[in-house]
């Protein structure tokens, strides 16, 4: 019996991105290969300048590579963007301040011609999902940072994308709110089954949320190694609960990621260090 192999959500091959010319050029990404399976949660982590946000923007087709290819669900990144195959959330929530919460969440639906009744229903669903149903008529300036990010996530999910791209969405929040948002995100991803590419600079966040953590290093930006969190003993990202943060596997994975970040990879079953 042939097993149907679903194509990967993201497939990055030999990607290189150079900014500037001549002596002042910056190699943001050098020879990067990455693959994210359908439904998988993958984090990109690394210090400033390692190219993680650049890589995310290349996948989103908000930027073009100098060399290499990027495919989303088997299509070129540009086609995937035009076909609206992904949802995106930025570090600044990027809500439009003159629109209400509901107005912001329905924005992609409105832009793509979904009719009014369907839109209203979907918006109500999404606000329920992120727990902001009572704030539909408020404006962003009346919400706290955490709430704004939840709206941004609801908006990213509006068209039920099979892929979510998230660029440090919790970066501007304090630790307590962050952990709460992480719990919410795990729940939402389990419910929707979407694949996620998540950029962060927090090790515990990356480990808690992901199936795999991709560690990057700067100058030039490249992938140092990958930690498979599942192999460290945690459940798959879709089955994770809040208590994962107290489990042994969590700490093992955090240590693994840290060792890769510091350039001293410890050879464990979970770590696939690509550099000597």
């Amino acid at each position, binding site marked *: 019996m042939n097993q149907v192999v679903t194509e990967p959500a993201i497939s990055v091959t030999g990607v290189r991105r150079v900014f500037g010319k001549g002596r002042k050029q910056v190699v943001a990404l050098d020879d990067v290969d990455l693959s994210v399976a359908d439904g998988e949660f993958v984090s990109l982590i690394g210090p400033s300048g390692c190219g993680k946000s650049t890589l995310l923007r290349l996948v989103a087709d908000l930027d073009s590579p100098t060399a290499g290819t990027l495919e989303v669900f088997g299509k070129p990144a540009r086609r995937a963007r035009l076909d609206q195959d992904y949802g995106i959330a930025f570090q600044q929530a990027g809500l439009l301040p003159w629109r209400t919460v509901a107005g912001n969440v329905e924005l992609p639906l409105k832009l793509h011609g979904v009719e009014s009744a369907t839109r209203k229903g979907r918006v109500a669903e999404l606000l329920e999902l992120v727990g902001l149903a009572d704030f539909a008529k408020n404006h962003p*300036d*009346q919400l706290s940072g955490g709430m704004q990010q939840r709206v941004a996530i609801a908006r990213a999910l509006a068209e039920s994308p099979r892929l979510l791209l998230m660029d440090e969405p919790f970066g501007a929040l304090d630790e*307590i709110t962050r952990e709460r948002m992480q719990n919410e995100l795990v729940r939402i991803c389990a419910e929707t089954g979407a694949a996620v590419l998540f950029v962060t600079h927090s090790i515990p966040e990356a480990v808690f949320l992901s199936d795999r953590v991709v560690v990057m290093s700067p100058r030039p930006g490249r992938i140092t190694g990958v930690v498979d969190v599942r192999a460290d003993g945690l459940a798959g990202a879709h089955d994770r609960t809040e208590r994962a943060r107290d489990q042994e596997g969590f700490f093992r994975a955090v240590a693994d990621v840290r060792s890769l970040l510091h350039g001293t990879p410890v050879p464990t079953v979970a770590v696939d260090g690509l550099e000597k």
Partner: protein
Amino acid sequence: MVTVDPVAPRETRPRLPVADVRWSTVLAPVAVGVLFVLGWEALVDRADIKPFILPAPSAIWDQVTANRDSIVSGARVTGSNALWGMLGGTLLGVVGAAVAGTFRFVDQMAAPVVAALAVIPIVALAPVLYSMFGAAVNSGRIIVAGISVAVPVYLNTLRGIRQVRAVHRDLMAAYAAKPLQVIRTVTLPTATPYVFTGLRIASSLAVISALIAEYFGGPIGGLGKSITSSAASSNYPLAWAYVTGAIVLGLLFYVVTLLAELWFSRHQPAP
């Protein structure tokens, strides 16, 4: 850094261009105004100043009450010219800035033309406009008001268009939004507060320009005509009465624009 979610959303109130409004904020200028008028009256009285230099406030007020209808009808003419000029000028300024903001070459081509328009004295333009459009119609006056509005609106709108945040531009790109959608969804709302800043400046300019254009001819009616004719017949208190009408008209335009600005900026983040 943001703290834990509050239970209820924060209340935001519409923001005034003034830092905060207290009794002193309102009383102080009123006090200054009252002192000024009293001082003026006393000065004219004691220094026995002739009316052709400076009429007393009381004399001016007498003329205002005596000629109220005439002042109002004059204000209506000048005001309507200023209003039409403002509408036309705003439309021209906003559309022009939208095009210039989208196509850089248009911006660079328009730059010297706009700069020249910004420095033309209305006094110089009025005579040629009257010969071009004829002295029997209000067109010349409306155009003058229009130009004085279009320039600040254009410049401020252009600035506003350039303030679109990168994250919003990225969002529109991620949604594969068409150019017209981008303008309607993001560019115009971002630029709106700047448009209003331009309008606020332009509102009283429109009135002054329409007024000055009336000195040079054109159809009868309008405060400017009344000012010049009463000054010519040496009835200076009356002339000043019309001037008062002009000031009130200018103030009216300014306040209405200010109120519109406040209403439209209800939910804008602080600049």
